[in-house]
Structures are given as C-alpha cells and as structure tokens.
C-alpha cells in the first residue's frame, strides 16, 4: 500500500513508552525553570482550509478522545455548532459564507478554530499560577488543570481568544495537541480522523514544506493569494493554516491578520506578576481556596482592570 505522506499510526495498547515529558519543558507559567538538556524537534499541525469539507470529524474525534461531551444546544441559523469553543469543545469548525468580490462566486470558508500553540504563548505569559501553563520544546503549550486557578488571564492573554473557563470547576481548558497521544508517539486525534487529510501533523519543517506544495496547487487553480498562516507576531505557531486568501485572514471567521501578544501582558507580567500576585500564588500553593471561590475573585481590582483591557484589545 502506498502511503499518505503524513499518515498517523494506530494507537498501541501495551508497553507504551513515552517520547517526551516533564524534562522537556522550556517554559512554565509564573516560574523560572532550568533549560532542558535537549531540544525536541518542533512539531506542527497544518490545517489546509482548501481541503476542509467542514465535516466536524475533528470535533467528534476531539470530544471522544478527551472524554468530553458538549451539551445538545439549539440551531440558531448556522452550521457553526456548538456556537463557540467551550471547556468541552476544544476545536470548532467556523463557517463563513463569503462572496468573492473578484469573481462574484460564493466561497464557503470553513476554518477549524482552536489553540494555535504559539511559539510565544500569550496565555502562558499572562498566567499567574505557577506551572498551570507549560510549554514543551516540541511546541506543545499545555494546561495543568491541577494548578489552574481559573483567573481567566490566559483568555485575556491569548491573541486568538481560545481558552475557556469551566463554570463547573473554574479551570481553563483548551486543545492539548493531544499531548497524551503525542507523548507515546501518536498524532493528535483530530489529524488522525480528518477524512480528507486537511489536517496533517509532522515536524514543523515538514509541515512548512508540505504547505508549499499545497499553495502551488491552489495557485494553479486561480487562488493567486494562497499562502501559509504562521504569524510571526507570536513567534510563529505550531498549528498553521493553508489559506486560499492568505492576504485576508480576517475573512476566515476573524482570524487575526497580525496577532501579537498585547503589550499590557508584558507590562503586567513585569510589574505585577511576581510581586503583586505573590500572595495569590501563595494561596494557590495551599491548593485549597480555589475549590471554593470563583477564580477571578482572588485577583486584585487592578489585575481585573488590566485583564479587562486585554480582553478589549483589538485582535487584528
């Protein structure tokens, strides 16, 4: 059988050995850590919007693999269902009906939304809880829910508006890039399931190279502005898109044109993170209060104000 270039293997069930772990952290929220002894090869997920048929297999596989279930809601006049990302739904097909002004043809743009796994992660930088957000040297940005205080700063710090806070356990959730699968040499569940291989997974170098072949094909079909979305404002991402109209990312359900971490995050990080919030970090260390108190209540009004500014920060 000839193989697809980036086919993902079947999960094994015995003698599972891990390929990376705690020793590979390069960043840890509200902490300083020793640089790891090795640098893992950066990995990436490439989402080719032009191959996507909007089937939501990625959403189904994500829910199934992560043992999450989204509530059965309503239809409010869109195929984008559930209506937003949620603590259960880490990824979401966002549907946009767009009339191309140059051809007057309808294009149904379908973008799989979810964590971009930024090389320079705004969520992690904004996070005041030590170790609640970590970054591995292969590019995964992951949340440690046991350490999360539910303050919502990660939401504010994210230029893509991805993390969601659970109303039940007051912790932040988002795509893990299936860190549990990757840890034993598997690819993410969404990429494995994707019927048209619109989602592929490999090293970032391979994905970039693969994107070039896709862009060439799209240009042969008249998409002169086809291109790769790997925004430099966040140091590049470990989830990238091939877009038919890379000159206008905003037409894809408001994908930011030039995402950057708000300067407020860096400012706040310096001024308040290790000083003003030291007490809060202490409370977290006891690991008691956050089970009884709404997360945001444990930050100061000043922090709240800063967070508000962040949320209102224009994203594109």
């Amino acid at each position: 059988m000839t193989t697809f270039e980036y086919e993902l293997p079947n999960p094994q069930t015995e003698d599972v050995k891990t390929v990376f772990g705690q020793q590979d952290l390069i960043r840890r929220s509200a902490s300083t850590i020793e640089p790891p002894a090795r640098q893992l090869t950066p990995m990436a997920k490439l989402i080719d919007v032009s191959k996507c048929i909007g089937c939501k297999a990625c959403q189904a596989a994500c829910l199934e693999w992560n043992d999450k279930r989204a509530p059965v809601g309503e239809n409010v006049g869109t195929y984008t269902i559930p209506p937003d990302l949620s603590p259960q739904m880490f990824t979401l097909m966002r549907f946009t009906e767009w009339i191309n002004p140059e051809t007057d043809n309808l294009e149904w743009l379908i973008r799989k939304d979810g964590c971009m796994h930024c090389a320079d992660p705004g969520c992690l930088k904004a996070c005041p809880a030590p170790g609640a957000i970590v970054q591995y040297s292969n590019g995964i940005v992951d949340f440690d829910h046991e350490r999360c205080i539910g303050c919502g700063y990660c939401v504010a710090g994210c230029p893509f508006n991805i993390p969601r806070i659970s109303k039940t356990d007051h912790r932040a959730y988002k795509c893990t890039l299936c860190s549990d699968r990757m840890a034993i040499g598997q690819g993410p569940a969404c990429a494995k399931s994707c019927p048209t291989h619109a989602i592929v997974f490999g090293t970032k170098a391979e994905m970039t190279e693969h994107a070039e072949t896709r862009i060439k094909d799209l240009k042969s079909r008249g998409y002169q502005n086809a291109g790769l979305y790997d925004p430099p404002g966040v140091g590049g991402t470990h989830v990238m898109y091939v877009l038919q109209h890379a000159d206008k990312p905003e037409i894809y359900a408001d994908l930011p044109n030039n995402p950057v971490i708000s300067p407020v995050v860096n400012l706040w990080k310096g001024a308040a993170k290790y000083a003003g919030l030291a007490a809060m970090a202490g409370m977290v260390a006891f690991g008691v209060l956050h089970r009884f108190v709404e997360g945001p209540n444990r930050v100061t009004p000043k922090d709240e104000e800063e967070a508000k500014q962040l949320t209102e920060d224009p994203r594109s």
Partner: protein
Amino acid sequence: MADIADTDTRISRRFFLKGAGAGVAVTSLGALGFGGIEAAYADSIRPFKLLGTTITRNTCTYCSVACGILIYSKGDITKGEKAEVKHIEGDVDHPTNRGTLCPKGAALLDFVHAKTRLEYPMVRRPGSDKFERVTWDYALDRIARLLKDDRDKNFIEKNAAGVTVNRWVSSGFLAASATTNETAFCTFKVVRSMGMLMFDNQARV
C-alpha cells in the same frame, strides 16, 4: 543510535512507516531506551487511556464506504471475558479510509453506548400506552404463533386462474441495511421459505 533530537522527529513520517502497525512502533520506541510511562510523563499530560485494552478489527456501521475501524475494549471477548468498548478509532492499515473517520465514525462509541440501546424484549399490548418487559421465550413463541396463524389463514396456493402461486401477502418483512451478509441470507431463507412476497430492504429509500 539516534541522538536525542531525532527522538521526536520519529513521531512524524519516518516513524510512522506504513504497514508497520503498533508492534513495530513499540519496538523502535523501546529501542530508544526510554523508560516506562510513569517515569517520563509530565504533570500536564494525562495517562494514555488505552493501556491494556484489547484491539478488535471491525467495519463502521454507517455508510457504504465501509471504513476500517479498531475497537478498543476493556476485556477480551475471544477469551470469554466480559468486554466493554472504550474507544473506537480509524484503522490506518485500511486501504480506503487510512485511519480517518468522519464525524459519525469518530463518535461510534456513543452509538454503542447510547442511552436508547435496547436491552430486553418488550411488548406493547393493544391500546396500551407503555412497553412491558417480557422474556425472549414469550416474545418468540408469541410472534411465531401470530405469523403462523396469519399465514395459515391467508396463504394463497392457487390464483383465480388455478395457477400454483404459493404466496403469502398479508404479512411483510423489512430487512435491515446494516446487518451482515450472513444475517441477510439467514433472513432470506426464513422469509422466502414461508412464501412471503412483501419483503424489502432499505435500498429503495
């Protein structure tokens, strides 16, 4: 062998050489000298949930692309154990679907464990507003009797012109569209041997 950086590269294409399947993957990973799962996991990463499950090859029950699937069960039915499905994923060795699944296939687990799965034979008596649980013996005896009585009463051996026709058209049977060929043949034999003509499957709708 490989240096440390190469470890991770192997997650992508070279590591996933086709036809290899799980066995080979484990071997090459093991050769890299990493320790057990507990040792190397990180705080943020949840334990791999398929450890110790049994894999069974199957085919998706929905459309006729017939994607290959792997069913991961707790317990091994081939060893006479009680087995419960924990996860279903596409089979990368299958030539058609190559490990992929659509949103129906990717959620097969919820079909298997649907709250509305039937567990016991039930009867609803004429005029009643509810189902009552009955035994298999009761249900099968009663259905056999109802079918036989109707057949005996309405079977047509000869038509008006005196031609032997041996048909039964006062009862009908609608066959499934997702049962196996073997079930289909079994059903065919039972239904046609009784002379039933009102017999169809879902091909027409």
